[in-house]
């Protein structure tokens, strides 16, 4: 029996080349010539790279839409994708948990760009305890600094396309700045006293800083640890005492904490609505109302504005 097993292992190992080459993704030297392969860790970063690269590069996203990056665990195929990449783009600031530390080591062999590290240090927020807060993307103004960095990294692996990338980056940055202004304008419509965003975890502090909204999360910046009863009580107290009309859940995070807060507030006679589902650590599937960062930002803003400025709900 063991002999058979050993043979099976050898055969299976030898056979690796076959199923992989035609399995799922095209091999590197296929159809569209020598398109560089870029692997992005999160959907947010993948969107950034796609916007800059357009069709010139093949962009592969490690984490599917709706997956929480904090609790993502790699599979052998993911590891293979990372190794096969010409460029790996990560978000950084420990968003990807243990993957991040390993990506640093991967940098010896594959070009790795950690986007959040390229932002000006003075604009990085600190979470409790002094570690940096990784959720930088929903500050569109801040995010607009990044397309150029991506273009540079792409240009290094694909010098022929450097100009194309730079041009696209320029355009995209401009769009992001526009989206930034638009978001600011729309959110300004919310009455000042109601500008409090309560979510499952602390993913919106950059957003809050950029657009003048106070942000409170049930859990800290990482979803990895469990929320305590003290956290829930604190938020219920806050929601009730401030008369906050709506709280929000996130597409990639379990929503039980938020449900508990709504109920806790209701028990104190304060009706707080579920304001809606926000895109936070993960964008939506392509073509959805959160398929790109711009779309997700607009959708989030729309959801927040609708929920917080709704006079009925505030009663």
């Amino acid at each position, binding site marked *: 029996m063991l002999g058979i097993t050993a043979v099976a292992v050898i055969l299976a190992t030898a056979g690796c080349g076959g199923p992989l080459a035609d399995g799922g993704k095209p091999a590197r030297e296929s159809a569209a010539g020598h398109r560089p392969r870029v692997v992005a860790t999160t959907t947010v970063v993948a969107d950034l790279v796609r916007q800059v690269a357009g069709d010139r590069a093949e962009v592969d996203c490690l984490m*599917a839409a709706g997956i929480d990056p904090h609790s993502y665990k790699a599979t052998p195929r993911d590891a293979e994708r990372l190794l096969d990449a010409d460029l790996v783009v990560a978000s950084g600031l420990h968003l990807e948990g243990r993957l991040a530390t390993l990506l640093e080591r991967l940098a010896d062999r594959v070009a790795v760009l950690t986007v959040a590290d390229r932002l000006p240090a003075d604009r990085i927020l600190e979470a409790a305890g002094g570690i940096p807060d990784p959720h930088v993307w929903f500050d569109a103004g801040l995010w607009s600094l990044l397309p150029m960095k991506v273009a540079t990294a792409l240009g290094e692996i694909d010098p022929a396309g450097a100009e194309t990338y730079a041009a696209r980056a320029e355009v995209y940055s401009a769009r992001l700045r526009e989206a930034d202004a638009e978001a600011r304008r729309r959110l300004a419509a919310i009455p000042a006293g109601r500008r409090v965003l309560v979510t499952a975890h602390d993913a919106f502090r950059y957003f809050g800083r950029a657009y003048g909204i106070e942000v409170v999360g049930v859990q800290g910046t990482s979803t990895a640890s*469990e929320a305590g009863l003290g956290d829930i009580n604190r938020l219920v107290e806050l929601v009730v005492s401030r008369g906050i009309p709506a709280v929000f859940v996130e597409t990639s995070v379990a929503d*039980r904490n938020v449900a508990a807060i709504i109920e806790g507030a209701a028990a104190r006679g304060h009706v707080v609505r579920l304001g809606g589902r926000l895109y936070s650590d993960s964008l939506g599937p392509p073509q959805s109302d959160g398929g790109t960062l711009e779309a997700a930002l607009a959708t989030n803003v729309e959801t927040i504005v609708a929920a917080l400025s709704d006079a009925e709900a505030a009663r």
Partner: protein
Amino acid sequence: MTLATFGQPALIAMAGLGLTYNTLVVLGGVAAVGCGAGVVGSLTLLRKRPLVGDAAAHATLVGVAGAFLATGRRDLPTLLAGAAVSAVAGLLVLVLLRRFTRTREDAATAIVIGVSFGLGLALLGGITARGIPGGGGLERFLLGQTAALTARDAALLAVISLLTIVIVTAVLKELLLVAFDPAFAAATGWPVGLLDAGLMALIAVMVVIGLPAAGAVLVTALVVIPPVAARQWTDRAGSMLVLAGLFGLTAAVAGVAVSSLRSGLATGPLVVLAAAAICLASVVIAPRRGWLARRLRSRIRGGDDQP
């Protein structure tokens, strides 16, 4: 479906005591589970199988992932139903291994724990890698989300705990007989296999409803620790069950109370630590069976600890 509908006076009284609504809900749910787990756990301890709960707990992961894959839903009842099915299946495998193979009982338990958990992880990994919508947060069941219990969850836990306690009480005589002397029980015509299977099913149910209250790893603690503590204080099975229930309940209350004091303190583990503190105290100071009492006795008798 909130407690608010049950009347404002109660809530005002609660607030007077410094208890918030959420604290009360979590308290109710966790206390019910702590109590039920203590009672059922006492019987598995007496049956000399304290770790079947551990096997059941690890087997639940498959069911959580499977239920999500099968229904695409991730509300508590669906996931718990899946968990219950796989916990029972895990224990069934355990029974079959014991019956049909030469593998020792402890090894069989370890096999069920390791392999079923591995299968669960493989399923979860597959769900994550394929980005199946809503798959996020399933693994949170592992460590529980004690503080996030809603009134419905708590009511579900309370009802099932109560039901379990009622069933245990109803067949307590038979369960104790089988635990004490299975040969005599069989010789006098009691269906020992059936009663054992029933006990296994009860422990599986208790473990499953302990998942949202404490998580897969820590629910084992609720099943093992309070009974061990209770055993220290009494020489009667009946009072041991009552005490184990009370200890479980007390640990739940204490853990919940401590975790509501400040933010950043996970509730489930605190409940376990409270139970462990009760257990430690029981082991040290319990009269007669406690460590101090034994030391004293052996001092008096000149080293002979045997009665």
